[in-house]
C-alpha cells in the first residue's frame, strides 16, 4: 500500500503545482493580493506531498518491496541499508523524483524567505517555479513512474544496485549536483519574472543574488564530489574524462560562474542588465539540457533514443518550450529592461575598469561553455546526419579549455585590484610588479625541484616541464595578487570612508580592518585562491603523474617514482553482497614503510559483475593509488601502481571555491538589506502603482 500512497501523493503534488503555476500569476495581473499570497502556501503544500512521495519510495526500498519494478531493478535483500536509501536516486525514475523533491525544496525556500520582496515579484517567481514543477511532475507520472508494480508475478529477489554506485560518493554527489542544477531554476524564475514585470534594477539584483550564489555553491561542490568519486571508484585514477555526462554538469557551472560575476556588476553598477538575465535563462536551460542528455538515452546511441523515444521526446519538448518561450520573452522585453526609467545615473565605464575585466571573464567563460557544447553535441549531430560514428577526444577539450582558464587566471589577478568605472593602468602595473616577479620566479625555479629526476649534481633540463611552469606561474599570480590586495585593504581599510578614521597604531587598525572586511570580499578571495589551488592540482598531477602497469607475483618489488611497492599477499574476503580477492601491497620510501594498501577485485553476486576497488593513501602533496587489474597465470596479477603528486589539490580547490561562494551568500549585506528591503519594496510598489 505504501507505494500507492506515494503515487497518490505525487499526483496531489502535481495538482498543487498546477494551481501554483496559474493562481499567483493570474493574481499578479489582476491585482488580487489573496491570489498572489496563495503561491506561498501552495509551494509549501507541494513540498509536503513530494516529500511524502519520496519517503514512500524510500520505505519501499527499506522493506525490499520487489513488486515495485524500480525497487526490483535497483535493490537486493543483501544490499546494506545506507545503499538501499541512496539506491532511491540510483537510477532514472528515482533520480527524477529527487529532482522534483529538490525543486519543491527550493520553491518552499523562496516562499519562506521572500517576505522582504514585493508581493508581485515573489508571486510571479513562485508561479514560474510551479510551472517548471508541473513539467517535471507530468514527466515522472507519464513516462517514468517509480511506483509502477510488477503484478502478479513479482520477483522474490532484486537485481541489485549497480556496484559502481554502491559507494559513499553516490549518497552525497547526486543530491548536491541536483541542488545546483535545480537551484538555477530560481535564478531562471527571477529572470522571467523580471522580464514579465519589465523591471530589473540594482535592488532586484540584490534580491536574486543570494539565490544564484547558493545554487552555484551546490553545483560547485556537486561537481567536485563527482570528480572525486570517479577518481577512487572507477578504479583507474582518472578524475575528469570529458565525458558527456560530466560536460553536462560543467556547462551550467561555467554559465553560472559568469552569472555570479555579471550580477555583481548589475547590483553594484546597474550595468549588464539584459546580459545577466540572458545568463540566468541560459544556466537553467543548460541544466535542463544536461538532464535531457543524461536521462533520454540519447548519449548511448541516437538510435536507442529513436527506438524508445517517449522520455527523450518529452524532455526535448519541455526543453524547447522553456528555452523557446523564455528567449522569446527576452527578445520582446529585454530592451524594456535595459533602458529603464528612473535610472539615477547613466551607466558608463571606460576601456580599463572592473566592468571591462568582468566582461572579459564572462566572454571567456561563455566561450568555454560553447566549445564544450559543440564538442559534446557534435557526435550526436554527426550520427543523426550519418556522417559516421565519431567520438570527440579529450585533446579537443583541453586545447580550448586550458588556454581559456589561463586567460581567466591572468584577468583574475588584475580584477581584485581593479576599480569600478575607471582603473588606472599605471596603478595596475605598479601593483602587479611584485606578484609578477614572484610568479615568474616560481615558474622558473619550482619545476626544478618538483621533477624527481633532476638533481644538482646532474643538471638536466629534459624533465623540466613547461606545463608545470605555466601552471605554477598562473597559480602564484592569482594567489600573490589576492594577498597583496588583502594586505592593502588591511592597511587602508575596505572603503575610502574607513581610511579617514585610521586608528592609533598600525597594527590595531589592521586588526580592526580585518574584522570589517565584508563576507563577500572574503568569499571572492577564498574562491579565487581555490581556483589557483585547483589549477595547481590539475597541472601538477597531470605533469608529474607516474603510472606503471605491472605483472606481479606475491613477493615482487617494483619501484615507481621513488616509492617501492611490494606485493605481500593475496586473500579472499567476503562482503555483504560480494566476494573479493584482496591484495596486500606495502609502499616504502627510502626503506621506510609509508603505507599498507588493500586493493580489491570484487565480484557482486546478484549482477555477476566484477569491480575494481582501488586502494589509496591520500596526502596533500601526493596520492599513492593501487588497483588490481586481472589475475594472470599462476599467482600473478596485473597491478596498476600510481603516484599522483598534488592530485588532492584539485578537490581541495573545488571545495574552497564552494566555500568562497558560501561566504558571499552569508554576507551581512543581504541580511541587513532585508529590513531596509521592506522600504525598498514599498518604493517599488509605489513605482508600480504609478506605472499602472
Amino acid at each position, binding site marked *: 500500500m505504501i507505494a500507492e500512497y506515494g503515487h497518490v501523493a505525487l499526483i496531489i503534488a502535481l495538482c498543487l503545482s498546477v494551481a501554483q503555476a496559474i493562481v499567483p500569476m493570474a493574481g499578479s495581473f489582476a491585482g488580487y493580493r489573496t491570489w498572489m499570497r496563495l503561491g506561498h502556501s501552495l509551494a509549501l503544500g507541494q513540498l509536503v506531498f513530494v516529500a511524502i512521495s519520496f519517503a514512500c519510495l524510500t520505505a519501499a526500498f527499506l522493506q525490499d518491496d520487489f513488486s515495485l519494478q524500480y525497487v526490483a531493478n535497483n535493490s537486493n535483500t543483501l544490499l546494506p541499508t545506507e545503499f538501499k536509501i541512496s539506491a532511491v536516486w540510483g537510477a532514472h525514475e528515482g533520480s527524477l523524483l529527487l529532482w522534483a523533491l529538490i525543486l519543491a525544496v527550493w520553491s518552499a525556500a523562496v516562499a519562506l524567505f521572500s517576505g522582504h520582496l514585493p508581493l508581485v515579484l515573489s508571486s510571479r517567481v513562485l508561479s514560474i517555479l510551479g510551472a517548471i514543477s508541473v513539467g517535471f511532475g507530468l514527466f515522472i507520472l507519464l513516462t517514468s513512474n517509480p511506483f509502477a508494480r510488477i503484478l502478479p508475478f513479482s520477483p522474490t529477489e532484486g537485481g541489485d544496485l*549497480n556496484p559502481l554506485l554502491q559507494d559513499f560518493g553516490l549518497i552525497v554527489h547526486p543530491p548536491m549536483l541536483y541542488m545546483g542544477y535545480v537551484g538555477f531554476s530560481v535564478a531562471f524564475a527571477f529572470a522571467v519574472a523580471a522580464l514579465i514585470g519589465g523591471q530589473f534594477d540594482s535592488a532586484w539584483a540584490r534580491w536574486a543574488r543570494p539565490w544564484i550564489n547558493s545554487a552555484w555553491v551546490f553545483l560547485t561542490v556537486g561537481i567536485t564530489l563527482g570528480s572525486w568519486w570517479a577518481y577512487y571508484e572507477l578504479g583507474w585514477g582518472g578524475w575528469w574524462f570529458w565525458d558527456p555526462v560530466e560536460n553536462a554538469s560543467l556547462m551550467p557551472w561555467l554559465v553560472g560562474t559568469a552569472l555570479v560575476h555579471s550580477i555583481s556588476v548589475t547590483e553594484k553598477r546597474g550595468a549588464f542588465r539584459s546580459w545577466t538575465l540572458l545568463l540566468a535563462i541560459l544556466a537553467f536551460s543548460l541544466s535542463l539540457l544536461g538532464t535531457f542528455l543524461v536521462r533520454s538515452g540519447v548519449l548511448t546511441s541516437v538510435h536507442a533514443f529513436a527506438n524508445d523515444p517517449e522520455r527523450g521526446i518529452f524532455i526535448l519538448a519541455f526543453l524547447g518550450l522553456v528555452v523557446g518561450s523564455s528567449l522569446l520573452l527576452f527578445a520582446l522585453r529585454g530592451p524594456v529592461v535595459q533602458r529603464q526609467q528612473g535610472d539615477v545615473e547613466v551607466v558608463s565605464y571606460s576601456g580599463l575598469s572592473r566592468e571591462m575585466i568582468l566582461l572579459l571573464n564572462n566572454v571567456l567563460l561563455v566561450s568555454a561553455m560553447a566549445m564544450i557544447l559543440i564538442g559534446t553535441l557534435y557526435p550526436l549531430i554527426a550520427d543523426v546526419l550519418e556522417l559516421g560514428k565519431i567520438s570527440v577526444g579529450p*585533446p579537443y577539450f583541453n586545447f580550448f579549455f586550458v588556454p581559456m582558464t589561463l586567460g581567466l587566471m591572468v584577468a583574475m589577478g588584475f580584477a581584485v585590484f581593479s576599480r569600478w568605472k575607471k582603473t588606472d593602468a599605471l596603478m595596475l602595473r605598479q601593483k602587479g610588479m611584485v606578484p609578477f616577479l614572484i610568479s615568474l620566479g616560481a615558474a622558473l625555479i619550482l619545476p626544478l625541484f618538483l621533477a624527481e629526476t633532476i638533481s644538482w649534481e646532474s643538471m638536466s633540463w629534459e624533465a623540466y616541464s613547461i606545463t608545470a611552469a605555466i601552471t605554477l606561474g598562473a597559480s602564484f599570480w592569482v594567489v600573490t595578487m589576492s594577498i597583496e590586495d588583502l594586505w592593502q585593504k588591511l592597511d587602508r581599510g575596505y572603503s575610502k570612508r574607513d581610511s579617514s578614521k585610521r586608528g592609533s597604531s598600525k597594527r590595531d587598525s589592521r586588526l580592526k580592518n580585518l574584522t570589517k572586511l565584508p563576507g563577500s570580499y572574503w568569499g571572492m578571495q577564498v574562491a579565487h585562491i581555490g581556483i589557483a589551488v585547483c589549477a595547481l592540482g590539475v597541472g601538477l598531477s597531470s605533469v608529474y603523474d607516474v603510472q606503471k*602497469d*605491472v605483472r606481479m607475483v606475491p613477493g615482487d618489488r617494483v619501484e615507481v617514482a621513488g616509492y617501492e611497492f611490494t606485493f605481500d599477499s593475496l586473500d579472499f574476503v567476503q562482503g555483504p553482497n560480494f566476494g573479493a580477492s584482496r591484495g596486500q601491497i606495502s609502499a616504502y620510501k627510502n626503506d621506510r614503510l609509508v603505507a599498507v594498501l588493500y586493493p580489491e577485485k570484487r565480484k557482486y553476486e546478484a549482477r555477476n559483475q566484477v569491480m*575494481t576497488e582501488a586502494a589509496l593513501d591520500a596526502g596533500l602533496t601526493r596520492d599513492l593509488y593501487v588497483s588490481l587489474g586481472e589475475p594472470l597465470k599462476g599467482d600473478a596479477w596485473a597491478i596498476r601502481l600510481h603516484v599522483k603528486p598534488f592530485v588532492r589539490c584539485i578537490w581541495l580547490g573545488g571545495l574552497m571555491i564552494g566555500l568562497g561562494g558560501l561566504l558571499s551568500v552569508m554576507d551581512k549585506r543581504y541580511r541587513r538589506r532585508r529590513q531596509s528591503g521592506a522600504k525598498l519594496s514599498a518604493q517599488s510598489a509605489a513605482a508600480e502603482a504609478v506605472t499602472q
Partner: protein
Amino acid sequence: MHPLRKQRLQLVILLVAAAALVVGLVVYMLRENGNFFYTPAQIVSGEAPKSTFLRAGGMVVDGSVVRSDDSLWVQFKITDGVEMLTIEHTGILPDLFAEGEAAIASGKVDENVVLQATQILAKHDEKYTPPEVADAMNEAYKQKEAAKSGSYK
C-alpha cells in the same frame, strides 16, 4: 567617416575576424580529434585508414585471447560476424572484458592489419552492449542474410 562609426566598424571587423578564427579552429580540432568508429570488416578490407587513431568494436572471439607469460602484452580477435580483426594491447584489460562479450578498442592499425590498441573498453554492465557494436553486428547479419538469399536464387 564619423570617428564613432569608424570605431564601431573596427570593432565589428575585429569581432568577425575573431569569430572566423574560432570557427576555423573548432572545425579543425573536431576533425583532428574526432575518432571514427570502424567495423572489423571495414578495417580488414582496407576501407579504414592506416596509422590514424580510430576505434573498432565487436565481439571477442572465443579462445582467441593470448597472453604473454612475463608481461601485460595481450592479443585477441574481435568479430562483427563477417571478418576477424586482431588486436594487440599492453596493459590492464577492463573488468568486464571477456571472451564472447563486446569490446571496443581504440588505437592505430599497423601494416599487418593489426590494431595496436592504446585503450580497451568493455561494456558497462552485463546487460549493456555498446551501440556501435550492436549496430555493426546487425548490419553484418543483414548483409550475410542478403548474400545467402542471393546465392540460392
